[in-house]
């Protein structure tokens, strides 16, 4: 892993190697330690280091990008030459903008030294806790405990330099009946490994597993749902791609007005729906710069139900006379890990007791876009679905497939619990509350356990 000084020296050295007027260098170095377990035993564990230098050079708006992980001088010189060759061959990019000069980046607050260095001795006790809980109840546990430490430095020939270090960790576990007849899940992402509560996760997953046994078939249809925070985050984060200013202006998002224009300023959601991104929230990790290397900042996307902002990159901002914003990127799984939805103060129990007839959902699986414009998604419930009758959990029910957009989900949201950091099964991170929403379409049953 590089220190700030080493990364700076390397990035600036490489930037100077290019004879092209523009050269941007990104240095990353990461170390990952993890222990994976299944069937009540460890199956894989590893420690791995990765490093990479990505060089983007530009002359006359022609850009070439070359990325290499051999960092000796000869390899780096050759990588720069290679990037220059690619640039010379590439057509000019009519949307290219001049590079940014020196920038002030705020320090991100969440780095934890102990998490950054944790290895098997710090992880195996958590695994043991979970396996012991499972074994005592004749259940079977699988899961992953992992930490990743990352150093990133950026530099360009115009005098820009930035450095960031982050560490993040997570523990997830699925506890199943030996005969495969039930399954329970619990997970926790944490910027501090010491904050992971494996005993609580083991209790939650095993209780869910014991409680979900013999799930009953219910009639598919529209239900009021209580989404636990992970389930809410699974869907809400997918609203991000709708906020691209360019796609919206071009008529390609749910925020495009029919006939032209956008829905910014319109109240599309209830008063209590506020969605923003905050890269400096100490509960999560985020780079202090945008993909275009501008200093990042907190942004409000939905303010008390009103569409507040769209995400402008530098090019689209220049075309429309707006200021560039931090991006809401990575449409597929929700790329902005600093996204957060404001919560309320109700406990999960209070949310459940407010529902006359509905379903409690632990989390979702295999969520995919059905229509990128309306943001309609499909996916399935997993690892614990329960019928709520008269404010009480009464019956475990079989998994169901949903077909819904995060837009309609937020429009139909009635109550919010407190917000916590969650990580979806396919990796998306955000801070999300548990919520109650009506008319959630669940059109088919799944036999999967």
């Amino acid at each position, binding site marked *: 892993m590089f220190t700030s000084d080493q990364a700076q020296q390397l990035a600036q050295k490489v930037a100077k190697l290019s004879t092209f007027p523009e050269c941007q260098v990104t240095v990353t170095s990461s170390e990952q330690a993890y222990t994976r377990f299944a*069937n009540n035993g460890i199956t894989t564990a590893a420690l791995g280091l990765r490093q990479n230098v990505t060089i983007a050079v530009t002359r006359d708006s022609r850009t070439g990008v070359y990325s290499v992980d051999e960092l000796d001088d000869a390899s780096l010189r050759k990588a720069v030459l290679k990037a220059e060759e*690619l640039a010379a061959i590439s057509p000019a990019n009519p949307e290219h903008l001049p590079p940014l000069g020196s920038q002030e980046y705020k320090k991100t607050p969440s780095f934890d030294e102990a998490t950054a260095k944790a290895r098997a*001795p710090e992880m195996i006790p958590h695994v043991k806790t979970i396996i012991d809980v499972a074994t005592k109840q004749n259940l079977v546990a*699988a899961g992953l405990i992992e930490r990743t430490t990352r150093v990133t430095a950026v530099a360009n020939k115009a005098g820009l330099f930035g450095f960031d270090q982050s560490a993040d960790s997570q523990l997830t*576990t699925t506890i199943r009946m030996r005969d495969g007849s039930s399954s329970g899940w619990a997970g926790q992402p944490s910027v501090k490994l010491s904050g992971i509560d494996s005993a609580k996760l083991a209790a939650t997953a095993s209780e869910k597993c014991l409680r979900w046994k013999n799930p009953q078939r219910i009639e598919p249809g529209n239900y009021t749902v209580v989404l636990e925070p992970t389930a809410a985050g699974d869907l809400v984060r997918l609203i991000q791609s709708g906020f691209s200013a360019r796609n919206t202006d071009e008529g390609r998002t749910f925020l495009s007005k029919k006939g032209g224009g956008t829905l910014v300023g319109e109240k599309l959601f209830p008063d209590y729906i506020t969605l923003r991104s905050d890269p400096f929230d100490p509960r999560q990790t985020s780079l202090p710069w945008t993909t275009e290397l501008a200093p990042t900042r907190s942004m409000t996307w939905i303010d008390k139900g009103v569409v507040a902002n769209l995400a402008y990159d530098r090019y689209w901002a220049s*075309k429309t006379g707006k200021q560039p914003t931090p991006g809401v990127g990575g449409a597929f799984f929700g790329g902005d890990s600093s996204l957060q939805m404001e919560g309320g103060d109700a406990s999960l129990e209070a949310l459940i007791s407010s529902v006359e007839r509905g379903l409690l959902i632990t989390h979702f699986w295999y969520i995919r876009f059905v229509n990128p414009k309306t943001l309609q998604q*499909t996916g*399935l419930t997993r690892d614990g679905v329960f019928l709520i009758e008269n404010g009480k959990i009464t019956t475990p029910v079989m998994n169901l497939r949903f*077909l819904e957009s995060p837009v309609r989900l937020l429009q139909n949201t009635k109550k919010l619990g407190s917000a916590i950091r969650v990580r979806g099964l396919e990796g998306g991170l955000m801070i999300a509350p548990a919520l109650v929403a009506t008319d959630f379409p669940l059109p088919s049953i799944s036999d999967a356990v």
Partner: protein
Amino acid sequence: MLNFRLISISMSMLMRLTRRQFMATTSALAFAGELFSSPKDSRAPSPDLERLGAVGLAEARKYHATYCDVRIVRLRNQQIALRLSPDRDTGKTLAVPNVSESTSFGFGVRVIVNGAWGFASSPLVTKEEIARVTAEAVIIAKANASIQPSPVQLCPVKTYRDRWDTPHEKDPFAVEVAEKLELLQSAAEEVKKNNKVFGSVAALNVRSEDKYFASTEGSSIQQLILQIYGNLDATAVDRKAGISRSRSYVPTNASAGWEYVPQMNFGENAQRIREEVVEHLSAPPVTAGKKDLILMPNHLMLTIHESVAHPTELDRALGYEANYAGTSYITMDKVGKRIASRNCTFIGDRTSPKALGTVGYDDDGVKTSQFTIIEEGIFRNYQTTREQAHMVGDKESHGCSQADSWATVPFQRMPNVWLRPGPQETTLEDLIAGIDDGVLIDGRGSYSIDQQRYNFQFGGDAFWEIKGGKKGKMISSVAYQARTPDFWQACDGIAGPAYWQQYGTTGDAKGEPTQINSISHGCSPSRFRQVNVLVTD
């Protein structure tokens, strides 16, 4: 015309680079390039690689490891894309290029000590680092052994000293970028010729993996795997109606050399999707209900991938993927039982020509082969690795071990899985003629399946109505949802060998931390009776 001018300039720029300059850098990245090069006709791995591998094996033996393998890998990836879209102010078409290349070089060491696995990796390929990292892997194995219910057992394997390359005539990395750009430019422009097309994207991705494997079993294997991917997308927007639709052409992405690229046939397909995206924009939505389906190979390949290839992975069936990818509806008691109609025979195959999952040897050092997964609807075999074979009473592995990088742990990944074509004489028209009310689905759309692979819902890229035995007009907003065993039991017709095509998929995710895999699935157009069809947004 603007775009053509840009290409002309770039061609002249290229000519200013001397051949010597170009070669100096393409043969470069010093050590890695030299390490993997050896006489073209040599059947033996490079002696330098063998010396490096031996360091790890010797170190592991010192720590009483009962098994060790060392993989030294160099990955190269070249991505070229061109987007044509209108300038916001003038409406003039702008061509936005994206040209990038990356390499990744390093090694990983796997050991078994006290009956448990340990793995460590590093991007510094030196003898000293290989020794250090092997010792790290041993430490990890010893720690894991403390919670290891039963020791790892590897089935026997033959030893090999060999070199295997993807059959190819022309190295795709040696082809000039300008030639690739020209191909993409002409395809993207062809799509954009109809002014109702809002934007088009053409992309080409060339990938190579140089891989050296040495194990304490005595094997020493060097491989070169080449892959070429392309795609062409068209978007159309009706602002008044608030509708945006797309149409894509994804050629049969293949493990091959550059000589394969003309077969991708971008030109003709560019014209086709140009017309079809406009038709798609005004195509009426499907009516929901039970319908018969004809699924074309470039669509059915993904249905096979999700509902046949994944549930026949042994690690899923045994619970090793329970926390992420999931388990399987095809449990051990299903061996010998019917799970599909008599028409359906599926083969696992890591030797299929041009398929993305085809290699000479897997990451356990097992020589790859073909095996039957489902025979006339009866489930026969799971996909296995050396570690898993004994769990199903087999003496040999089916060669399905793979890691996606030097930095990741090999585990069970699916081979190419293909569906045997129907009778010689069966045509696509025959299949359509047997349908009163149905839908023909082409290309990939949205796809989602539960963690045991029962309930799936798939969209497509384009849809045509079938009425009274005839293919009719284009329709839209189609998805079908089914329960896997019911769906495959409902397969009552498969077109003959003349219609069989193989398509590749690249982003197959499995394992924690997640690894990505590329594989191909071949099939002929097939008919499925009375499937639940939905209308989407």
